[in-house]
């Protein structure tokens, strides 16, 4: 009786999804988080108005940013900064805020892919 139960339990256990990825440091000195189901995004701000978002796929391989668009909503010094990000070199999406953005700024980035699908990353 125990063996069939064990087998069924094993089958059940195989289908349980893994736990979420926590925000973690990215290779470019920013914070890397999950963006939607298929992407990872790393936000890099360094005290200047320029903000860069690096795009990766779910296996952390860089994704060319051509064709992608993004909107950033960042909290800087107690106020919200909204600005657009445009594709840059490689897997970069680049945008400029109206005020300097310190490293580790909180907020969200909404990314629209070339096929119109959207993804969100919360930092």
């Amino acid at each position, binding site marked *: 009786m125990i063996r069939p139960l064990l087998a069924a339990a094993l089958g059940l256990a195989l289908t349980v999804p893994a736990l979420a990825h926590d925000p973690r440091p990215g290779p470019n000195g920013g914070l890397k988080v999950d963006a939607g189901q298929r992407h990872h995004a790393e936000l890099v701000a360094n005290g200047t108005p320029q903000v860069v978002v690096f795009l990766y796929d779910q296996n952390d391989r860089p994704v060319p940013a051509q064709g992608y668009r993004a909107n950033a*909503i960042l909290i800087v010094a107690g106020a919200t900064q909204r600005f657009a990000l445009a594709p840059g070199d490689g897997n970069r999406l680049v945008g400029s805020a109206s005020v300097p953005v310190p490293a580790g700024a909180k907020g969200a980035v909404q990314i629209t892919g070339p096929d119109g699908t959207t993804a969100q*990353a919360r930092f």
Partner: protein
Amino acid sequence: MTTTSSMRFGFLILLGLVLGGLPVVAHEGHDHGAPPPPVSITIAPRVDASSADFELVAIARGTKLRIYLDTFRGSEPVHDAEIDVDGPGGTVKAMVTSDGAYLVDAPWLAQPGTHDLAFTIQARGTIDVLTATLTIPDPAPMQAATGGLWHQMVGAALARDIEARLATRDASLWIVGAGSFFAGLLAARLLRRRSSRPAAIAVLAVLAVAGARPLQAASPTVPSSVPTLAERDVAQRFADGAIFVPKTTQRILGIRTLFTEVRTFAGTVELPARVISDPGAAGHVQASVTGRLAPPPGGFPRLGTRVSAGDVLAFVQPAIGAADVTSQQQQSRELDQQIAIVERRLERFRQIQGVIARSQVEDGELELQGLRARRANLERAQREPERLVAPVSGVIAAVQAISGQIAEPNAIIFQIVDPARFWVEAMSFEAHAITGSANGRFGDGRTVPLAYRGSGLADRNQAIPIQFSVEGAARGLRAGQFLTVLASTSDERSGIAVPRTSVLRGSNGQSIVYEHTNAERFVPREVRVAPLDGSQVLIVSGIGASKRIVTQGAELLNQIR
């Protein structure tokens, strides 16, 4: 392991895989922490998001997005926030509604699919961005379904079909039911005999074909019975005991939560006790002689009358026994006689003042004076009543006085207490090392703070009396009331302190608390509790730190079926 058993083993693994759900489509790691919101066809599409400060629920109704915002830790509604929603329609500001929610015009809600939303919240001096993905289900998912989704489609279609057939009392349902039963019996017999594997396989094959046919037939009938959304979401309990409570209902029930943290508390003992009057502020009025009670001018003080120390509360007219009266009369006659003798003698002395010593006259005068004083005293002692005065200031708590009543010297005629000063006497059957503070809890749930005063060393009824004074204004107390004293001892325990109202009794008699796991989901958790103080209990095990426990409205949640 024989071939048959290994085959069965493999089959069971396969069964487990199917039962556990389809293989996960998303790549691993994209679970956003919170378990998925409850899926029910009668609940409006909704999404929730939370941060360390806020918890938000957005509900799609028609082309409006309704947003409910609460604080994360306490689940208190936030009515004065500014919310901007970044969605498919650009950035839209949410309007505050009269019922404390926020409303956003969202024409894009008419399109099925997933919509990424970012909520920028500005409230209470903090600013926060929350993200969520709202999924609007396709109103006619059957047509769009492809072969890959065969399992899900058949499941939903079958359920709806059976529902529809039950509603119309379709005879085919009964026929299928009865047929399945007999087919099951037949299969069991064949498999049990293990006579021939081909026979068993044949039975399974027949069952599979028979099962598949009605399902395929059922599909075309589905669009006519697509469920419509209910006007409002209702709370419901799931099979695992978790409850889905929409935000609107949570607001009505006044749900509040507490963010748990593990702390170390002093040990606590529960002792039965009763209220006694403060020995330093209470007084008894007793007569010292047997006598007849007489009221002072204005009558006896009534119950509840405030008196001050020294006030005359009653008079006692001493009752004199017959023997005493005789001896008193005798004494007074004797005194009268002596007075007469001394008066005579003094008169004679005065007449012959020149020949006798002056001191003799003076002695006689003093003797007469003394005798007259004694005589007067004796008369007064018969008439003068004893005055009963209040020994302390306070309120008359008990009266045993009736005019004309004979008061015995030991009887308590009046009890005076200070209503602002009470003590509590607890009985302890064990020797506890009780430290400074304690709490008293009455039967109706009221609590009073207590301070330890001392404990007796002599047993009384095999227990040690321990006395506490009631701290602060002790309103509504009376001597003799029963209560439970929760006194802290010198040993320490660690756990989570929660209000007494959080802990409920489950249907199986176990103590449970409700954990607020998601914005609209509450899960009962079994816990072990220990007494802590009058208003709180200590959760010793069953739940950890950084969880949200329902403190207000838990009783109401427990009634949701």
